[in-house]
């Protein structure tokens, strides 16, 4: 079932128009890169999809359900199927790696027991498997803030894996990492996309990464969708439309 974004608009309380009537449809299994300058509205778009930010108007429909109209309870059930990873990893720094991964399961487990810090053994096992998949099983008992940036982002991926997501939102997942690490992280995401069939929406800064991983690109400029197509369709003219007239193309 597709993800339909329909005339999505976000105006912040201070009057900033971060998104303006953005519409597109994403089919299952696509790897969509969201590109655009700083402040173009990439983070806002991704957060409006799972309503971490309330859109001002427009609709987001996924699996035939209108996310924008969901009650708080429904919204939690939708969110638990949508994994999310962040530029700053957003781990709970003082908690262990294992606990961080387990939090990915909070939408599924008994909420009262989870408040006491209890997760059933089956979930702990699932968390260890997720950590194995990102190659961090031996760091399970370390505190999250003892890990390197690349390792922290892999914990972030393991946390998303716990949700058994159908959709993955990634907000500049590699912008805080060096290029080598960037590829390693994106390969995990690519594997999720190819092997597990998870639809991916991922904002990216570098066009070479876009060409290498994405099957489709959506370009934003000042909150308006200015491009929607395949990565190889971004020619010099399109590039200048997205990034401005002064921008010079480097690499990619």
């Amino acid at each position: 079932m597709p993800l339909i974004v329909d005339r999505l608009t976000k105006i912040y309380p201070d009057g900033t128009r971060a998104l303006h009537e953005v519409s597109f449809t994403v089919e299952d299994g696509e790897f969509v890169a969201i590109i655009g300058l700083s402040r173009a509205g990439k983070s806002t778009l991704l957060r409006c999809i799972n309503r971490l930010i309330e859109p001002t108007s427009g609709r987001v429909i996924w699996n035939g359900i209108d996310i924008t109209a969901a009650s708080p309870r429904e919204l939690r059930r939708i969110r638990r199927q949508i994994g999310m990873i962040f530029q700053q990893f957003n781990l709970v720094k003082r908690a262990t790696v294992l606990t961080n991964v387990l939090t990915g399961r909070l939408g599924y487990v008994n909420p009262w027991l989870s408040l006491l810090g209890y997760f059933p053994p089956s979930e702990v096992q699932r968390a260890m498997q997720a950590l194995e998949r990102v190659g961090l099983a031996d760091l399970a008992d370390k505190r999250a803030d003892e890990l390197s940036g690349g390792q922290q982002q892999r914990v972030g991926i393991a946390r998303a894996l716990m949700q058994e997501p159908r959709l993955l939102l990634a907000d500049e997942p590699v912008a805080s990492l060096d290029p080598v690490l960037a590829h390693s992280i994106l390969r995990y995401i690519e594997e999720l996309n190819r092997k597990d069939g998870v639809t991916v929406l991922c904002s990216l800064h570098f066009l070479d990464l876009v060409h290498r991983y994405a099957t489709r690109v959506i370009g934003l400029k000042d909150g308006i969708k200015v491009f929607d197509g395949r990565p190889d369709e971004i020619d010099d003219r399109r590039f200048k439309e997205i990034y401005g007239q002064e921008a010079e193309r480097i690499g990619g």
Partner: protein
Amino acid sequence: MYRHRRWLQIIGALLALGIYAGSWHVVGIDLRKLVEPQAARRAQEIFTAFLTPEILVPERGIQRVEVPVRVPCESGNIPETAEVGEGPRLFLPPCASPGTQIRIRGEGFRPGSELVLRWVFAPSPQLPLGGELLAGRTRTDAAGHFELDVEIRPLLAQEGGARLQAEARWEGRWQISPALTRTMELTLQTIFLALMATTLATGVAAPLSFLAARNITARGPVGTAVYYLTRTIFNVVRSIEPLVVAAIFATWVGFGPFAGVLALTVATVVNLGKLFSEVIETIDPGPVEAITATGANTLQVIRYAVIPQITLPFLAFIIYHWDINVRISTVVGFVGGGGIGYQLKLWIDQTDYHKAGTAVWAIIAVVSAMDYVSARLRETIR
């Protein structure tokens, strides 16, 4: 324009001068009062007493036995020796003739103590208030015995006899003074009083602080109203000094540590509530966002994204406030809040300045100790 400002300055300066002159007068500042001879003497007395607090006092003891002796003896009776008393005992004839001497022996007294013998007269027409007459002095020997000859004076015949009283007095080893014991008890009470108040207050302030945290509560009109209401309550109650609150509670539930606990609790709730809410407002929003995105509910978000970030800062503030509360509770006692402060006030009112000195030193010791301990604790948890 410029002239105008000059005039304003002059008027302002005059006004300030007037206010200060008035205040000086109203407050009754009279520096001479500090050095008047009488005042200086009192000050010296108090300070000397404070510098020599009552810590050790000699153990004191007293033993007393009384036996009646008739004077004179009735017709031709030959006096036998009578034995009287339990523990310390006296041996002496039950009657005597005036002008003679009788031998008095004692046993069972504390060895090596000062012994005084005196006649104790019952009230009579000649001695309407009764009376006492020294009969002799000696010391008890190493076995607690003594022997002394006592003269039968004419006054005894006149009164028909009197009771002979033997009194042994001694000063023993130096020991911890009752004032110091009391001070230590009350110092402990003060620390526990502060601990209870801090703990109770933490229990109330921690949940409240979430309501007073903008990033948690100020969502939607209801949340925003709750946020401002909690803030306002905190600010209003914070403006009332703990001393005033303590005075109110002392009349409500009576003088004593309970009133002190209540007063300190109120003060601590609002202070910690404000500090806690500021901690919550400055947490990293990233984990909150991430946990929310997993489909967790609000309580789960608080448990997994907020609490891990605030535990240590909260703990640091709690320890810091315990320290502050020990300090305040010494003063709160003065207005009826129990603890060492209350006893200090009693001793000062009774002009027991040496004992007051003991309390003052204890306060200085405990406050600096808490200061140090709380600083170290806060260092280790950082």
